């Protein structure tokens, strides 16, 4: 089975550990029966194994054994983070418990006071119209005086200049009949009408109003 000593020595380890197949074991024993060199090497290898097994076993020094027990005990008693957090939370709650009733009363009192105070601060609703927030507003006619005069068939178009106080500064007839009767009636009507002045950034200023007047006759 085995051709050379080198080949047979590859199986010494298995032979010593009793892991050789029966055939290999038989062949090895046969080879050992006549090969002194291999026999000697196998004996040496076995002797080395015996020497290793004869080495004294080192027990753990007593102080180390004690340290190990202490260390394991410490590790066993070490609490996880979650437990630490739960404990601190519980302590925090316990510490706050005496303040629970006063704190609740304080909060309720604060809410009531706040409600009362804010109630007094609510702005009342008034009839005063709001100030326009537009940058520029044109002058407007608030109320046209009910004067009757003949404007002619084509009517009249008048440009009226209104000052910051809402009074007419001047007017100009742009189109229409300008007879003395008509102009007299127009004068009265413009004089007795009410105007709202133009505004710029909320302040009254000069402006103009264009009036288109036409007499309407209704038969009753």
């Amino acid at each position: 089975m085995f051709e050379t000593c080198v080949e047979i020595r590859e199986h010494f380890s298995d032979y010593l550990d009793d892991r050789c197949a029966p055939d290999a074991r038989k062949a090895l024993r046969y080879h050992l029966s006549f090969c002194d060199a291999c026999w000697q090497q196998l004996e040496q290898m076995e002797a080395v194994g015996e020497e290793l097994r004869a080495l004294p076993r080192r027990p753990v020094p007593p102080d180390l054994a004690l340290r190990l027990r202490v260390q394991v005990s410490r590790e066993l008693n070490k609490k996880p983070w979650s437990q630490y957090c739960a404990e601190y939370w519980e302590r925090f709650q316990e510490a706050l418990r005496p303040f629970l009733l006063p704190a609740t009363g304080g909060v309720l009192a604060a809410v009531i006071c706040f409600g009362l105070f804010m109630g007094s601060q609510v702005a009342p609703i008034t009839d005063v119209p709001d100030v326009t927030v537009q940058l520029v507003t044109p002058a407007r006619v608030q109320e046209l005086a009910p004067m009757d005069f003949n404007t002619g068939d084509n009517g009249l178009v008048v440009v009226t200049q209104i000052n910051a106080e809402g009074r007419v500064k001047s007017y100009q007839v742009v189109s229409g009949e300008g007879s003395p009767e008509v102009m007299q009636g127009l004068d009265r009507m413009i004089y007795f009408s009410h105007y709202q002045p133009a505004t710029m950034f909320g302040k009254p200023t000069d402006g103009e109003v264009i009036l288109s007047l036409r007499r309407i006759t209704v038969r009753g």
Partner: protein
Amino acid sequence: MGTARSVGITFEQTLPAENAEAAFIAELRAGSQDAFAHLLAVYQNPVFNLVWHMVENQADASDVLQDVFVKIFKGIKGFNGESSLKTWIYRIAVHEASNHRRSWIRRHWREPVSVDDPDSPSAAAAAEAASRERRPDQVFEQAEREVVVKQALASLAPPYRTVVVLREIEGMPYEEIAQVLGLAEGTVKSRLLRGRELLRRKLASYVGKQHV
């Protein structure tokens, strides 16, 4: 030539029975103080012996042993039972010892080495001689043998040394060594053969004097 090996080691007899191991692991996971005390009682000596053979220094072995048990404590909840508890513990021990050895080499490669090693077998044997009242020549013969064998073992490259220690000193079967080291069984076999052969060459003259 007898080939049957006696690998009976004290802790082997006190290990929890296979069917009780699951219950024991459950106790450990639950954080039972008694279970951890039992774990320490059963495993601290064999693990210390293994680590000591790998790092060759009692102070370092002590540090590694503490690290190993801290890792065991922290990792027991993640232990899924794919291997036995013993295999898992030995795997952690071998890993920690290897890491420690690597970091030790990085830290101390420039430092001079003291010739007065307080952990040497001679010192231990002298202390033992005082306590057991053995004949001085027997004590020193024993001490010399230990020194020679230990030096030869220490001179092996770490992959071979680890396999030889697990097989010859801890008496582990090949399958378990493969599981501890995360290697194929064939690799364990070849490393063991190579390690034994290297040791035989280093100790040839010594064992020849003793046995041949």
